[in-house]
């Protein structure tokens, strides 16, 4: 038990260290981008007709605290984020970022997790079957399909599905809510409406994630299948599903759990593209909007930090889960 606590503590501090590093990187990048928040906001004002001068910009910078040194500003940003969960105000929109992102972020995270789960629900059984089957044909075609999942741009898939729906039902399936519920408060009907539409992004995001997951599962199972303990178990008369689930599958599980974080990362990478096609209003498309339209550093930083924090949190949880299943992991405190 003590060992486990120690492990959890070390992992937690490593996660926090990672988050700090990430926040520094993100903050620096947002800093490197030409132009400060004050300049941009006032330039925006300028286009609205109110003339501004250098003094105005400097006053605005002082008001926003932009005249302080870089490290001080970073510390206060990080402090606010970590201790109070506050991301401050958006640069252009002048709205509190927490409010702005609100449940949009929760929805997009939910969609991503759902597609991750979908990917592994398909990949684990199929991967195990592929690895244990001797059929060249089955293996070859599975490999082909999963590479196709990688190579075929998922926006293409999204377009096709949308087209089919437009032709068949006259509803293009864009957006996460139908018009009736878009601005309505959460209710049971709204949830049903949401679910009836959310499957499409989940499916499309899950499509290429499945391709990767399938490769991982198959490779791991092949590795484990060749090991001596499997041969030994087979020699003792175990065979078929019993053998597969009790021996190699259990060992392959560890690395799979470990790779979940990176799978989530990959899904986040594809989220903006799919969101663009489906015109979703969750964080993915909001990110694009914040970035492409208004050059809003604060908002961009907040979104990227949130996404990364989700991945770090998932990594932490999977580490703990692994330690619970596998005593060897507990022992190697820093290893991994």
């Amino acid at each position, binding site marked *: 038990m003590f060992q486990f606590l120690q492990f959890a503590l070390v992992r937690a501090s*490593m996660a926090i*260290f*990672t988050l700090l*590093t*990430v926040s520094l*990187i*993100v903050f620096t*990048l*947002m800093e490197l*981008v*030409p132009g400060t928040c004050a300049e941009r906001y006032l330039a925006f004002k300028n286009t609205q007709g109110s003339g501004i001068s250098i003094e105005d910009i400097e006053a605005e910078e002082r008001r926003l605290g932009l005249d302080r040194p870089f490290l001080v500003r970073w510390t206060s940003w990080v402090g606010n984020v970590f201790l109070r969960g506050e991301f401050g105000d958006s640069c252009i929109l002048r709205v509190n970022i927490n409010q702005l992102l609100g449940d949009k972020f929760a929805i997009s995270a939910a969609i991503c997790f759902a597609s991750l789960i979908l990917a592994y629900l398909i990949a684990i059984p199929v991967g195990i079957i592929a690895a244990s089957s001797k059929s060249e044909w089955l293996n*070859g075609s599975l490999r082909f399909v999963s*590479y*196709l999942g*990688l*190579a*075929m*741009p998922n*926006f*293409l898939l999204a*377009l*096709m599905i*949308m*087209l089919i729906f*437009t032709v068949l039902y006259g509803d293009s399936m864009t957006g996460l809510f139908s018009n009736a519920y878009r601005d309505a408060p959460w209710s049971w009907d709204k949830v049903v409406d949401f679910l009836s539409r959310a499957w499409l992004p989940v499916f499309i995001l899950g499509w290429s994630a499945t391709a990767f997951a399938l490769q991982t599962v198959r490779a791991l199972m*092949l590795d484990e299948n*060749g090991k001596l303990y499997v041969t030994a178990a087979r020699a003792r008369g175990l065979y078929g599903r019993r053998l597969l689930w009790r021996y190699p599958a259990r060992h392959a599980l560890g690395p799979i759990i470990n790779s979940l*974080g*990176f799978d989530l*990362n990959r899904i*986040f*990478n*594809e*989220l*903006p*593209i799919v969101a*663009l*096609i489906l015109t979703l209003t969750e964080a993915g498309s909001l*990110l*694009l909007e914040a*970035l*492409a339209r208004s*050059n809003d550093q604060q908002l*961009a*930083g907040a*979104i*990227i930090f949130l*996404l*990364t924090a989700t*991945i*770090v949190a998932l*990594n932490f949880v999977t580490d703990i889960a692994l330690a619970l299943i596998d005593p060897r992991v507990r022992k190697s405190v820093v290893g991994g």
Partner: protein
Amino acid sequence: MTMEPEGTHGTTGPHVEVVETEDAVERRAREAYFTASQRQLIWARFKRNRSAMVAATVLVVLILMGVFAPFLSPYNPTVAGRDKDYTNGAPQIPMFCDQNGCSARPFIHGVTRERSIETNFRWVTKVDPDKRAYVEFFVEGWEYNLGPFTFDTHLFGVDEGYVHLFGTDDAGKDIFSRTLHAIYTSLAVGTLGVLISFVLALVIGGVSGYFGGVTDGVIQMVTDAIRTIPIIPLFMAVAAFIPDTWSSETRFFFISIIIGFINWPTLARRVRTHLLVERNQEYVLAAQLQGAGAGHIIRKHLLPSFTSYIIVDLVISFPYIVLSETALSFIGLGLKDPVNSLGVMLQNTTSADVLLNYQWYFIPVLFFIALVMAFVYVGDGLRDAADPYGGSRK
């Protein structure tokens, strides 16, 4: 290896004619196997992998198509080469026969553009089956540069009018020419990106692996932190700040650099692992005992021991680089006209109008899929071939 029992030199007794028995041939083959260099071994194993060989052929063809794009494409891929009388035109396939008889030289039908009361006063392109444009080879067309030389010869063209194998887009640009140039651009961005990430990986992974200990620990923690950041949103953030005034060339280099920065952590980790393992090998110790300096060991022993693996890693990472370029360009944050990459071509397909009416816009997508698949298969084949235990498993 065993000593050769029937050595021909320095033996007493009657002279024996050495006959090439099958055994000897086999032994020579085995000898060649044991003395073969890393690269020869990988190539030998790679050749046995059928799907990888097919993919390699496809890849080579695609690369050649990209490199010789200006020669192969009949028209300038930018607006300069547009065919304004044939916008959104369907692909024209050269044929040998039509209702007016056959010809030894392939031809296409000419087109006319007309606007009348029947067409609701919209411009409509009609195929005129009585007009023929014959396909010609090595025709002179728009000028292009290959290195310091300027050429104007193109592989094919037609004697009058235009030929569009893959049709044209809404501005009348030839999709065939654009596809070839897009392949070239995507490959060039990818190569540049791979080189950048390779250098970064070599330096960072090299420092990490060579020094080990605390340095290694710190670098690994930072690398891991970087690896957790979802890259595409991050670079969307950066790319959004590219000023609109940048020329397409500047954009091109900027995107390549960004893509180089996407990929280094994975590669760096491989370099580090290789170095960590190789550093403790006996041959390194042997070299050290003989008084070789660190620089000599790194250059003559360590680097050759894993260059082939690094090349394999580079090939494996290539499709992902092409994919990230496509993703960036697709969102509209990467390359833009007149530089056209596969991402730009893919972006053109995203409207329902295209899907319903102008399906030939999707031809570049097929090339894109083929390119990525070929890379992935070749990468896979190389990885299997580079794995020294690959043959013994299964």
